[in-house]
């Protein structure tokens, strides 16, 4: 079973249905036990970095994520759900940055680009070690964000350029993440989801 962590308002319906196309059962939940024990946990993103952390803290999300990784249970962060896996985020921070869950050491900062948010379909270049992008080499995925991580972390990275190059996906053992929305990326997104559910 796949659990999608529900920690605030927003559109989780498409994520639920998109992950269900993999053939696995999917639940949208904020229940700690369900989230801890599911075969895979999807952490979607809601709102800005700090607001997202606030919502996540309210359901004990950071502990759930850390505990799952220790117990070798896969986690997939999406969009802001990827960003909060880093140690720091500068969004809406007047002085310095907000603390993230800190699975990866690094900062999520504003993209330097002529048009923001980075909104729409863009291509992804993956390291040779990628598992999740196998068969998806020439596909585009749907992005909506203004902030991003710009330094490599994890075992395999994928990169996308909007104004500057940023990390569009990370594969790092039991924890993976995408800056784009696979659940909104049409057939390519569903194929990516299938690659992830097969890998867990």
């Amino acid at each position: 079973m796949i659990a999608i962590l529900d920690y605030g308002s927003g559109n989780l319906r498409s994520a639920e249905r998109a992950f269900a196309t993999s053939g696995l059962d999917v639940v949208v939940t904020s229940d700690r036990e369900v989230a801890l024990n599911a075969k895979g946990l999807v952490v979607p993103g809601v709102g800005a970095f700090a607001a997202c952390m606030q919502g996540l803290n309210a359901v004990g999300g950071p502990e759930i994520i850390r505990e799952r990784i220790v117990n070798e249970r896969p986690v997939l962060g999406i969009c802001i759900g990827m960003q909060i896996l880093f140690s720091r985020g500068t969004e809406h921070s007047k002085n310095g940055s907000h603390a993230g869950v800190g699975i990866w050491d690094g900062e999520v900062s504003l993209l330097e680009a002529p048009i923001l948010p980075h909104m729409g379909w863009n291509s992804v270049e993956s390291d040779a070690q990628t598992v999740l992008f196998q068969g998806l080499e020439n596909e585009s995925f749907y992005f909506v964000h203004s902030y991003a991580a710009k330094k490599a972390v994890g075992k395999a990275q994928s990169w996308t350029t909007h104004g500057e190059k940023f990390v569009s996906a990370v594969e790092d053992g039991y924890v993976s993440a995408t800056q784009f929305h696979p659940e909104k990326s049409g057939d390519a997104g569903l194929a990516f989801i299938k690659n992830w559910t097969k890998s867990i």
Partner: protein
Amino acid sequence: MTLSVRIIACLDVTDGRVVKGVNFTNLVDAGDPVEMAALYGSEGVDELTFLDISASIIGRETTLDVVRRTAEQVFIPLTVGGGIRSVEDVDRLLRAGADKVSMNTAAIERPELIAEIADKFGSQVLVLSVDARRARTESGFEVTTHGGREGTGIDALAWTEKACALGAGEILLNSMDADGTRAGYDIGMITAIRSVTKTPLIASGGAGALEDFAAAIDAGADALLAASVFHFGIHRIGDVKSYLNTHNYPVRMQAAR
């Protein structure tokens, strides 16, 4: 590699059905919105927009159901506009499965609503619909309401700047002069709005010939919305994308699978 120009199909929905017409008085039933959304999705459209033109509360409830059923089977971004007046309206639509909402009148009547929605859900959910026409305001472009029938006296450039500062995540620029004419997007209007904002800009109103889409990109549009040319079968989604691709504009071409 770069960000693709988005092609967006807009469906006018009332009481659970898609309607099409050259103006608001000649509406004909054009089919089931969920089926049409799925068809456009399979043809490679980059985003979908439902414009709810229902006049009744029951009609709006029906739209929520349409949004639900669409979000369950079409996995591309879905924007819903029409009659959204409050944070609660936005919440209902997002929970039903919309990714973004577009609003016009309510934001004009109470601009703080833009900030309230952006603070709660993030700027990315809020598409500000600027229904503008050529008129004697400072920039020569005036914001209208009620499908272009009522002027507000508000200058479209000043309004766009203000709305972006308040938190609008995207601008849907709809030329009320060009709307339904298929004579081309209002290039002057796109150029003018582009000069005052770095927020993504969707051009709408007037799409006819394939060259029209390219001209709007040249003027600074990040995305191109069309309704009638697609609904009446004048162009398929793929025709527009192939044309743009051939002319070296970045578009998402569907891989064969």
